């Protein structure tokens, strides 16, 4: 891949970062579930596709790391399954369009005509953040670990077996290997031929920042169900709160904008907000005394696994949020049976936490 023109490399990267998740999301975008209603289904498709791919990546990469297998095993197996899933998703979308005729194109609609000016303001604020993500750099010491791991993995093709700060080989670093988001960046670097450092510092924020707002959009869609004109207002204020969220070094907004490429940033700004979306849907369905459907629970598990992919701490935080919300829901609605599926969704995180502690 290294000998290809830069334009081609960027197209390959865009294929893996934008097209494949969108197509994989076709399974969700064409299924009947609570999140797949009304406008904005394209955002739901793309976000859900990305979560499925991240969960898949964790399930392939962690065993490979523990078995001390090299990166090509991950690249070929993850790459092949992703392409198969994307092809399946594409078939689903095509069939959906054929069955529904012009109405099938509603999948792509996100806005009402009357609220376009506010959508425009929200888009401009997002554009500002994307331009700044390319133009500005943030010096963070933790990159010396995470980005170096991506660079080393893409170059040496071993996973967590080299010392990131100084070089030289070492035993497998299992504790960090349980949260292999840097290896995902190495994968993108490997398949596109773009240096891992550029993928981490430039390409990853261009993917993860819009994804954050897509998740907020999904949340807004549920919060303001039936009052869609309020969604762009909600997005404008969330963007302003992010842009002016640097009131301390520790805020999730600081992590999201300044250190997007690090797993903990993705955890705080994408995974946890996505859990809010899913939990809100669950609460709504509990109130309506209806089921959420298989697609919902499948996505829920994928989001929980993504929490593990981002950070080993994510396993604990995701379980905590689910436990507290599940407990509140069970008490408020007097439906304690909801705790069982929620507990099952936490299983991957529990396994991850146990592995982490066993290697402590």
């Amino acid at each position, binding site marked *: 891949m290294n000998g290809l023109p830069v334009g081609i490399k960027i197209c390959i990267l865009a294929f893996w970062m934008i097209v494949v998740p969108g197509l994989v999301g076709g399974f969700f975008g064409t299924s009947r579930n609570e999140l797949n209603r009304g406008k904005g289904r394209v955002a739901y498709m793309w976000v859900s596709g990305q979560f499925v791919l991240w969960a898949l990546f964790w399930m392939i990469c962690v065993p490979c790391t523990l078995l001390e297998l090299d990166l090509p095993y991950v690249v070929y197996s993850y790459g092949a399954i992703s392409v198969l899933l994307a092809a399946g998703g594409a078939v689903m979308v095509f069939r959906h369009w054929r069955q529904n005729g012009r109405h099938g194109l509603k999948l792509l609609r996100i806005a009402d005509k009357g609220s376009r000016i506010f959508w425009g303001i929200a888009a401009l604020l997002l554009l500002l953040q994307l331009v700044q993500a390319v*133009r*500005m*750099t*943030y*010096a963070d*010491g933790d*990159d*010396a670990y995470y980005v*170096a791991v991506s*660079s080393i993995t*893409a*170059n040496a093709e071993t996973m967590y077996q080299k010392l990131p*700060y*100084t*070089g030289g080989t070492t035993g497998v670093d299992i504790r960090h290997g349980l949260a292999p988001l840097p290896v995902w960046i190495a994968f993108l670097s490997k398949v596109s031929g773009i240096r891992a*450092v*550029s993928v*981490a*510092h*430039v390409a990853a924020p261009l993917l993860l920042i819009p994804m954050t707002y897509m998740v*907020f959009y999904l949340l*807004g869609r549920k*919060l303001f169900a039936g009052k869609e004109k*309020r969604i762009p*207002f*909600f*997005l404008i*204020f*969330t963007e*302003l*709160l*992010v*842009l*002016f969220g*640097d*009131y*301390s*070094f*520790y805020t*999730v*907004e*600081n992590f999201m*904008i*300044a250190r997007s490429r690090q797993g903990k940033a993705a955890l*705080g700004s994408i995974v*946890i907000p996505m859990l809010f979306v899913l*939990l809100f849907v669950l*609460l709504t369905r*509990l*109130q309506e005394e209806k089921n959420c459907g298989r697609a919902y629970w499948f996505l829920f598990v994928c989001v929980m696994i993504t929490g593990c992919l981002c950070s080993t*701490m994510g396993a*604990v*935080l995701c379980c*905590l*949020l689910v436990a*507290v*919300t599940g407990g*509140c*829901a069970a008490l*408020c609605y007097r439906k304690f049976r909801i705790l069982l599926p929620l507990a099952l969704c936490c299983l991957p995180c529990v396994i991850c936490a146990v592995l982490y502690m066993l290697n402590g």
Partner: protein
Amino acid sequence: MSHAVWLLQEYMGSGLIVIWFLIALLYLFVREEKKPVRILFVYVPLVLLFLFFNPLFVKVMGSLLGDEIYYRVLWLLPMTPTLGYVIVKLCVALRGKRRCLLTVGAVGLVVLSGSYIYRNPFFAKADNWYHMPDSVVKICDAIEVPGREVTAVFPLDMVQYVRQYSPVVCMPYGREMLVDTAWNDWAVQDDLCDVMESETVEAERLGQLAKEKGCIYIVLPGKKKVKGDLQKAGYALFAEIEGYNVYRDVTFAP
């Protein structure tokens, strides 16, 4: 003062956003009618805050997450969506000029209470598409040898970037030297680093320590005072790049 209270104060920083969040929480507690919103935006944050300050919970989570990152439990509070939801709810409850005034006021409140992220002093204009300092990129490109790794000693202000850009350039010490020893148990001390960072570098001592650590290259800022001759210590000037002098082991044959 307990660790949790201290962490909350640190998290709140200079801004008032956390206070607005607590007020929004109170508003929703009193006025919100939708049960799912009440649960997710009121009850769950209240339970999480209760847990956050609970000494037993602090102890358990502190041991699981680590005391210094315990503040990340606060990431579970839906601050941004709650504030966004309440602002929109308040704005749409009004009509005409009042709505405009409240919207502008809310924007002003967010702007004045928070801190613009791109004003953070750690942000700087990127030198290149790698988001690495040009000096690091050019020096690494110059010293890389195809098909093998090379070891080079860099000034401390460059160590955190070197292996992000080039995984084939190894170093005798890395970012661990930048960490405060009082704060992290993985911070270390290194004689070579002490010599490199001293005001006047003793050439012979530097050459001797660099050889011991297997360094093929030594990178020194051009302005650095060097006492003695590095050539005599076994390192000859290889290149001058972006204000840095790069010395190479005279016995090295690439």
